[in-house]
């Protein structure tokens, strides 16, 4: 059946959520406007900047290029969830220590994108790190500090 308004049931940062959404509402707008999770940012709204990065069923996606309606039954994790769990605490510290953020607009997307690379063991060298974050724009830092922070965590986690 087709509908302009849909009821969805999903898990967001471990909590069960039941909501009614417009068919045209994107996932990132749903998280921000309906659930008040404003850590995921909205930049370009057409997939180019990566500010809206969130995890759906364990994989990072563009929150602006998925509909909330498509997330019925899905497991969503946002920067709020991964921050609270402590999973990215070391990465967040490294970003702070190395000035890998200035305004912070890109940072939630950067952290989630970097975390995926680190968890898959793929942060082997600076070129790979750069390639992996190529879809995330930062207007402030010039990227070097971000690559430094990710590289540092790849080393400390690798040595544990």
């Amino acid at each position, binding site marked *: *059946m*087709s*509908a*302009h308004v*849909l009821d969805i049931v999903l898990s967001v940062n471990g909590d069960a959520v039941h909501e009614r959404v*417009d*068919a*045209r509402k*994107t996932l990132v*707008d749903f998280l921000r406007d309906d659930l008040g999770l404003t850590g995921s940012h909205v930049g370009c*709204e*057409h*997939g180019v900047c*990566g500010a809206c*990065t969130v995890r759906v069923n364990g*994989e*990072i*996606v*563009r929150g*602006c*290029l*998925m*509909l909330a*309606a*498509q997330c019925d039954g899905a497991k969503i994790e946002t920067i709020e969830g991964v921050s609270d769990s402590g999973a990215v605490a070391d990465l967040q510290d490294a970003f702070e220590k190395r000035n890998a953020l200035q305004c912070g607009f890109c940072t939630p997307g950067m952290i989630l*994108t970097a975390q*995926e*690379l680190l968890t898959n063991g793929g942060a082997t060298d600076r070129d790979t790190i*750069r*390639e*992996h974050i*190529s*879809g*995330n724009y930062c207007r402030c830092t010039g990227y070097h500090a971000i690559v430094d922070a990710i590289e540092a965590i790849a080393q400390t986690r690798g040595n544990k």
Partner: protein
Amino acid sequence: MKPAPFAYAKARSLDEAIALMGENDARLLAGGQSLIATLNMRLSAPELLIDINGIGGLDGIALKDGMVEIGALARHAAVERSDTVAKHAPLIARAMPHIAHPAIRNRGTFGGSIAFADPAAELPACLLALGGEIDAIGPKGKRTIEADDFFKGLFETALGPQDVLTAVRVPTATNGMRFGFAELARRHGDYAIVGLAAAAKADGKKLGDVRLAFFGVGETPIRANKAEAALAQGNVDNAVAALDLDPSDDAQATAAVKKHLAGVLLRRVTAQLLGREQ
């Protein structure tokens, strides 16, 4: 921007998707990585989106009668990680990392890329270079379309308004086959300014059955037939001179720059085909 209102339906079967497409100004929603971007920018405003992600059996990657078959809903990331693709369709494996960025590859689908037919996209050109084929199903049943007959114009393919692309097949690579791939883009993962996907048979020190598919230089991916013939004669200078591409200026580069870069890529890819990669 936000999309104009539309209705959403989750199709449970191909039959249901085809029926829904017949009744409405509808669009199929696969990975959404091109479609939702165009809706957000209000470049298009269909009445209904038919989500095909829930239809089972369309995301396989397997060997079938000497061909590698990739289901329409196989995500770019799954194709990129596939051992079958790496071993039996190495040209596609080489192209995958150039397609967008990791988060987009996690959602975008192989079939969506072929059906969308962006003239600067990698996969349509790979399909053309490999002489692949496309399976579609519509109200009149199933059919198979050769890659050479599939790409018709700017974002236009042989698919009808009620057709669903279900799978793509390419011949499995054999020992004597050589492949080459190169593209130039401003930022890693962006659509190419110019790109080239190529296949050929190694024939001693020469090349046979050369297939050169350029992308980003026209309304569709384009075979460079004259250059193919010249390259089979063994002369790369003649092949570059024989390039008869007719690109237009676009936001990324002028036609003259694109033509020049096409020649540069042809030399690089020829070196790959001859096993003399620098």
